C-alpha cells in the first residue's frame, strides 16, 4: 500500500492557510494528495476587497478559486456538497459514512483535518469530528495516521504543544500562491498584511510559516 494523504477541511481556503506548505512537501516527494472539501464557503463574509462578489455569485467564484488552488498545489479535489455554516447540524454519523466512502476507496496513509473542539469555526469542529469518526470505521490495524489541526487560542494551554510542527518557510511562495488563488477571500486579509509590511513574503513567513498538528490518539 503506497502513501496517500487525504486532507479533510470544510472550506475553500482552509487548505491554503492551514496546510499548503505541508501539502507541498508531500507533493515534492511524489506522494498523492486528495482534498475532500466540504462546502463552497457559500456564506463567507469576504466578497473581495474592493467587493466583486455577491451572496449569490460567491459559490461559483469560490468553486473556481478552489479548483485553481488545487491546480497550484497539484492535488486531486473532491467537492462534497455540504452548505457552509450547516455541517454541525447534519448527522455526524451520516457525514462520517460519506467521508468513509472516499477513505475506504483511497486507503490513505495520513489524514489531515481540524481538531474537534479546538478549531474555532463550527464547520471546522464538526467536519473534524466526522473525519475522525470516519477513520474509526476502519479496523484499528488499518487506520491511517490522523493529524488534527488546532487553531483555538487555548489549544496549547489545554492540549499541550502540538507534536507535529512543520516549518514550511521554504515553501512560503507556493503557500502564498495557493492563498492568492482564493482571491475573494485573500484580498482583504493580505491587504492588511501589505499595509503593515514592506515585504509580504517575509510577513507571511512569520504569520504562516509553521503548520502544526496533533497526532490523534484513538482509544
Amino acid at each position, binding site marked *: 500500500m503506497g502513501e496517500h494523504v487525504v486532507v479533510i477541511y470544510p472550506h475553500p481556503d482552509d487548505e491554503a492557510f492551514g496546510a499548503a506548505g505541508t501539502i507541498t512537501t508531500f507533493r515534492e516527494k511524489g506522494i498523492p494528495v486528495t482534498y475532500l472539501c466540504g462546502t463552497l464557503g457559500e*456564506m463567507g*463574509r469576504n466578497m473581495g*476587497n474592493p*467587493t466583486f462578489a*455577491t*451572496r*449569490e455569485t460567491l459559490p461559483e467564484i469560490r468553486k473556481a478559486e478552489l479548483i485553481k488552488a488545487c491546480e497550484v498545489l497539484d492535488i486531486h479535489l473532491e467537492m462534497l456538497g455540504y452548505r457552509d455554516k450547516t455541517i454541525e447540524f447534519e448527522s455526524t454519523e451520516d457525514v462520517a459514512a460519506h467521508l468513509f466512502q472516499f477513505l475506504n476507496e483511497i486507503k490513505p496513509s495520513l489524514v489531515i483535518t481540524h481538531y474537534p473542539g479546538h478549531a474555532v469555526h463550527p*464547520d471546522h469542529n464538526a467536519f473534524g469530528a466526522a473525519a475522525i469518526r470516519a477513520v474509526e470505521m476502519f479496523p484499528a490495524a488499518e487506520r491511517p495516521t490522523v493529524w488534527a489541526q488546532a487553531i*483555538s*487560542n487555548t489549544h496549547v494551554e489545554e492540549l499541550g504543544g502540538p507534536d507535529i510542527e512543520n516549518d514550511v518557510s521554504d515553501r512560503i511562495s507556493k503557500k502564498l500562491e495557493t492563498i492568492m488563488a482564493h482571491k475573494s477571500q485573500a484580498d482583504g486579509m493580505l491587504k492588511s498584511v501589505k499595509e503593515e509590511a514592506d515585504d509580504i513574503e517575509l510577513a507571511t513567513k512569520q504569520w504562516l510559516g509553521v503548520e502544526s498538528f496533533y497526532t490523534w490518539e484513538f482509544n
Partner: protein
Amino acid sequence: MQPIEIDQLQQYIDAFANKEVYIHLETTNGAYASHFNKDAYNAGAFIRNAQVTYQRGKIVGAGSTYRVGLKLEIGWIYAEGVSQYELDKNNRLLMAGHDREGRLMVALQISETPFKY
C-alpha cells in the same frame, strides 16, 4: 453591486409587492469575532428561501446606509445597514451592506424564484 439610488431601488421593491416571493435575510459578524477579539461576541442569523408576500416595502435613507422594511399580513421583515444593491440577471433584487474591508454585514434579497440551495 452599486451604491443605493433610493428612487430606483424603491421602484424595484415596489415591483415585488403583492407577489409570492422568496427572501434571503442575513446578518453576521463572522465566525471568528470572539477568536480575534475576546471582548467580542459571535452573533449572526440567516433565513434562506422564506416564502412570503409583502403588501408594501419601503427603503429609508440613513446617511450612507439605509433601512428596508417589508410589511407582511402578519409581520415584518427588516434590515438595517444596507448600502449597495443590484438587480441581477435572474431578476433577483440583492441588497447588502459591507464593512470597510469589504466584508458582508447584512443582506436582504428578494426573488420570485427560490434562491439556489
